[in-house]
C-alpha cells in the first residue's frame, strides 16, 4: 500500500495502468473464432432479384415479397445519413452478401444425429447451456426435459437463418408465440401483416428501409392479453460468414395486460474487413402491457488498429400504444466498430412509460453514436433516460437523444442523465441532446457530465484500505451501477463481466 502522500502520483499511475490494461484487451475478444461450416450464399450484391430470392428462400407469401420490393425501391431513393459523429469508409452495398445459411439447415434436422455437429459446437462454445443447446440445434422432444434453474427460451440466429427456438411447446401452452419471424410470416400472417412496419415504417430511414427489403430472419413474439410470459425470451445473433451482412428483424407484440422480458445477445468472428449489420426491432405495447428489452451487444469491435469489426446500424423502436403501457430498454454496448443505434419510445397511450438505460463502452478505434428518443404524445406519460458512456483509447462515444413533449402530452415528465467517463487523452465523449417542450404542465430535466476517473474518489477508497486496482474498479462500477441494476439477472452477470473485461482488466 502506497503512503498517503504518494496518493496523487499513485492515482495517476493507477489510471495509466487501467488504460494500459484496456489497450491490451484489444486482442482478447472472446468470441472472435469462426465456425467452419459449409454455407450457401445468395449471389453477391443487391437487386430486386436478390430481394425476391430472399423472399423465396423463406417461402414467403406474395404480399411479403411485394412489401420487401416496395422497401427496396424506396431505399434506392434514399441517401446514407451522415449526421452521426461516426466516420467510416464508404460502404459498397453491392460488395456484400445479403443471404447466407448453413447448407445443413436447408432442411430442419429432426434428431441430434441429423444436426450439424459444427452448429452444436458453435453454440456450446458461445456458452449457451447444454440443455438449451440441444434444443437450439433443433432436437425435437428435448423440450420435455426439465430445465435447470430459470428457464430462458432462446431463438438462435446464425447468419441469415434461425437455427432453432427452444421451449416453444411450453410457451405455446401459455399462449405465447415465440418463433423465427420467417416462420411467423407463414403461420401467423394476420399478426405479422397487422404489426410489421407499423412502428418502424418501411421508409423510416436508410438502414431500416434496407432491412425491410432484405431481412432474412429474426424473432417474432406475441404475448396474448393478460399473459405474463412464463420465462424470459432471448435471441442470440451470430454472424459467421465473411462479407455477409446480417439483417434481422424482430417484432414483439405485448397484447393488453401482457408482460414479457426479452434478451438479445450478439457476437461475430474476428475479421480484417468490416461487416454490416442493420437490424430493425419493433415493439408494440397495448393497454397495461409491459415489455423489457435488454441487449448485450458484443459484436467484434475490430482490432487495436481499428481494422475490421461490425458496423452496427440499428433501428429499435417501441410504440406504447395502449394506456398505462410500459417499455424498458436496457443496453450494454461494448462491441462493434461503429454503432448507430437509438432505441426509442413513442409514448402514445395516456399514462404510458418509457425507460432507457444504457452503458456504451468504446475502446481503441471504436465509435458509438447512440441514445434514445422519447416522444411524449399521451397525457401523464413518463420517461427516464440514464446513459453512461465510457471512452478509452482513440474511441469516440456520443450520446444523441431526443425528448419531445407534444402539446397534448399534458402533465408528462422526463428525466435524463447522461454521464461520460474519459480514460486517456486521445478519446472523445460527446453529448447531443434535443429537447422540445411544447406544453407547460410537463417537466423536463436534463443533466450531463463529463469527467475522468476522479482522483479524489480513488484517494478516498485507498485511504480506507482498498487497493488501487479495486478502487478503480469500484469507481467504474459505481459509474455504471444504475444501468447494470436495470438488467435482468440473466444478463447482469454477463454485462458486469463484460464491463470488467473492457475496462478493469486484471482488477477484482
Amino acid at each position: 500500500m502506497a503512503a498517503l502522500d504518494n496518493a496523487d502520483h499513485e492515482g495517476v499511475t493507477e489510471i495509466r495502468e487501467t488504460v494500459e490494461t484496456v489497450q491490451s484487451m484489444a486482442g482478447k475478444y472472446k468470441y472472435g473464432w469462426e465456425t467452419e461450416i459449409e454455407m450457401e450464399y445468395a449471389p453477391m450484391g443487391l437487386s430486386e432479384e436478390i430481394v425476391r430470392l430472399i423472399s423465396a428462400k423463406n417461402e414467403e407469401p406474395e404480399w411479403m415479397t411485394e412489401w420487401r420490393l416496395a422497401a427496396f425501391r424506396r431505399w434506392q431513393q434514399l441517401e446514407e445519413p451522415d449526421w452521426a459523429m461516426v466516420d467510416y469508409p464508404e460502404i459498397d452495398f453491392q460488395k456484400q452478401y445479403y443471404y447466407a445459411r448453413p447448407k445443413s439447415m436447408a432442411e430442419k434436422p429432426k434428431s441430434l444425429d441429423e444436426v450439424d455437429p459444427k452448429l452444436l459446437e458453435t453454440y456450446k462454445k458461445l456458452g449457451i447451456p447444454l440443455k438449451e443447446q440441444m434444443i437450439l440445434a433443433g432436437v425435437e422432444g428435448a423440450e420435455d426435459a426439465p430445465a435447470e434453474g430459470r428457464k430462458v427460451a432462446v431463438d438462435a440466429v446464425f447468419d441469415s437463418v434461425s437455427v432453432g427456438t427452444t421451449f416453444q411447446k411450453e410457451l405455446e401452452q401459455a399462449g405465447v408465440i415465440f418463433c423465427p419471424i420467417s416462420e411467423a410470416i407463414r403461420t401467423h400472417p394476420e399478426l405479422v401483416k397487422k404489426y410489421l412496419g407499423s412502428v418502424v415504417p418501411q421508409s423510416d430511414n436508410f438502414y431500416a428501409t434496407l432491412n425491410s427489403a432484405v431481412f432474412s430472419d429474426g424473432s417474432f413474439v406475441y404475448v396474448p392479453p393478460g399473459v405474463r410470459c412464463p420465462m424470459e425470451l432471448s435471441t442470440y445473433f451470430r454472424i459467421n460468414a465473411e462479407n455477409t451482412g446480417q439483417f434481422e428483424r424482430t417484432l414483439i407484440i405485448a397484447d393488453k395486460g401482457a408482460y414479457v422480458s426479452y434478451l438479445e445477445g450478439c457476437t461475430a468472428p474476428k475479421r480484417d474487413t468490416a461487416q454490416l449489420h442493420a437490424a430493425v426491432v419493433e415493439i408494440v405495447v397495448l393497454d397495461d402491457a409491459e415489455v423489457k428489452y435488454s441487449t448485450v451487444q458484443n459484436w467484434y469491435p475490430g482490432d487495436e488498429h481499428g481494422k475490421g469489426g461490425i458496423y452496427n446500424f440499428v433501428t429499435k423502436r417501441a410504440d406504447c400504444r395502449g394506456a398505462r403501457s410500459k417499455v424498458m430498454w436496457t443496453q450494454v454496448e461494448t462491441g462493434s466498430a461503429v454503432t448507430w443505434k437509438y432505441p426509442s419510445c413513442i409514448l402514445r397511450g395516456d399514462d404510458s412509460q418509457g425507460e432507457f438505460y444504457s452503458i456504451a463502452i468504446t475502446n481503441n478505434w471504436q465509435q458509438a453514436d447512440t441514445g434514445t428518443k422519447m416522444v411524449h404524445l399521451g397525457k401523464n406519460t413518463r420517461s427516464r433516460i440514464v446513459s453512461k458512456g465510457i471512452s478509452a483509447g482513440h474511441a469516440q462515444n456520443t450520446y444523441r437523444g431526443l425528448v419531445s413533449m407534444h402539446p397534448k402530452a399534458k402533465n408528462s415528465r422526463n428525466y435524463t442523465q447522461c454521464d461520460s467517463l474519459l480514460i486517456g487523452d486521445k478519446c472523445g465523449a460527446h453529448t447531443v441532446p434535443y429537447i422540445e417542450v411544447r406544453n407547460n404542465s410537463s417537466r423536463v430535466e436534463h443533466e450531463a457530465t463529463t469527467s475522468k476517473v476522479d482522483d479524489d474518489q480513488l484517494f478516498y477508497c485507498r485511504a480506507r484500505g482498498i487497493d488501487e486496482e479495486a478502487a478503480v474498479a469500484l469507481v467504474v462500477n459505481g459509474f455504471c451501477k444504475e444501468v447494470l441494476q436495470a438488467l435482468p439477472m440473466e444478463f447482469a452477470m454477463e454485462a458486469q463481466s463484460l464491463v470488467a473485461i473492457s475496462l478493469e482488466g486484471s482488477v477484482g
Partner: protein
Amino acid sequence: MGLPQAKLTATEARLAALAMPEAPGWTRLGRLGARARLEAMGLPGRRDEYWRFTNPADLVTPAPVPAAVFEPSENPVFHAMDRLRLVFVDGVFDAAASDDPALAGVEITRLAEAQALDIHWAAELYGTLEARGQEPVERPMAALNTAFATDGVLIRATGRAEKPVNLIYLHKSDTSDAILHHVIRIEPGADLTVLENGPAAARFNKVMEVDIADGGAFHHVRVQGRDHERRAVTHVFARLGQESTFKSFTMTANGALTRNECVIELTGDEGVAHVAGACLGDGSDFHHDDTIFITHDAERCESRQVFKKVLKNGATGVFQGKILVQPGAQKTDGYQISQSLLLDEDSQFLAKPELEIYADDVACSHGSTSGAIDERALFYLRSRGVPRAEAVDLMVLSFIAEAVEEIESDVIRDEIVERLAQWLARHRR
C-alpha cells in the same frame, strides 16, 4: 458541391438587393472573402440542422418585413449612467446625437469613415474572427454581414476605459434593414465595457468581433427587444488570449424574432468566458433563439453559459449551446445551464445543449430544464398575503436571478433587474 436550387435562388435574390460600399478601402479583402464564403454556403434555410428550431425565412428575404416604430414611454435603459454614447439611427451613425468619441484609454472610429483610409489596425481583424467562426458550423448570416455591412464602430482599448461605451440603436423607419459590423480590440491588460440597447431597425443584422489580448477584459451588456416588432440576427465572435476575460449578458424582452449567436474561442491558458441571457417573451409572435458555441483550445480555461427564458401566451424560446473541448485543452471547466419557465400551455422551449470533448482531464456539465411555475411555492407566497400576480413576478425574478448575477457591475445589474420587473408588471396577463 453545388447548393440546392432553393438555397441558390434565395441567396441570389438576397445578393441582388445588396451592394458593397463604393470605396471599401482596407475592408475590401475581408468583404470579398466573406462574400465568397456566403456564396459557397448559401443563406440558411428551414432544413438546415443549425436552424432546426428557428425559421430564418424573414431574415433572408430581399426586403425586410416592415416593423412599426415603437416609442416606449419610459427612459431608455442605461440613461442615468455615465457612459459614452454612440448613436445609430436605422443603422446609420448619427454624429450629432452621439458624444464626442474621445475617451482616455480607448480609440474609437466609425467604420464607414475609417474604411476610406488605406490602412487601419482593424484591417487584420475585420472578417477574420467571423471567418474562424464558420468552422465547424456555417454562419451565413454573419458572412453576409461582413461582406455588406454599411456601418459600425472600430474600438481599440489600450488601457482601462474610464467609462462604458454605449451603442444606442434607434429605429425611425418602418422598413429599415440595417447591417452593422463592429470590431473591438482589447490590448494586453486593457479593460472595456460595451453596452448596447435599442431596437435598431425593422430588420437588424449585427456582427461584433472582439479580440481580447492576454490579460485583457471585455464586458458586454445588451438590452434588446422592448416590445418591438423587429427581427434581428446578431453574432458575437470573441477570441480570448491568455488570462483574459470575456463576459456578456443579454436581456431580451420581446421582439418578433431574435437569433443571437455567440462564438467564443479560448486560445490562451486560463481564459474566462461567461455568456448569459435572460429572455422574456409574451405572445405567439415572439421567437427567441440563443445559439452559443464555445471552443476550449487551451488549458485551465473556464466557460459558463447561463440562459433563462420566461415564456407566455404562445412564445417560443430556443437554446442551442455547445462546449467543444479540443485535444490538449486539459483542466477545462465548462458549465452550461439552460432553463425555461413556461407560464401557460401554449408556450414552448426547444433546446439542444451539446458537449463535444476530446480531452480527458476536464469537468464539463450541462443541465436543461423546462416546466411550469411551482404551484406550491406560489401557494406559500399567497398564504403569506402576496397577491398572485406579484407572487408570480417574484418567482420569475428569482428564476432569472442566476443569469442576471453574471453581470459584474452592481449599477448595471440593478438597472437590469428594474427593467425586468417593469416588463413583468406590463405583461401580467
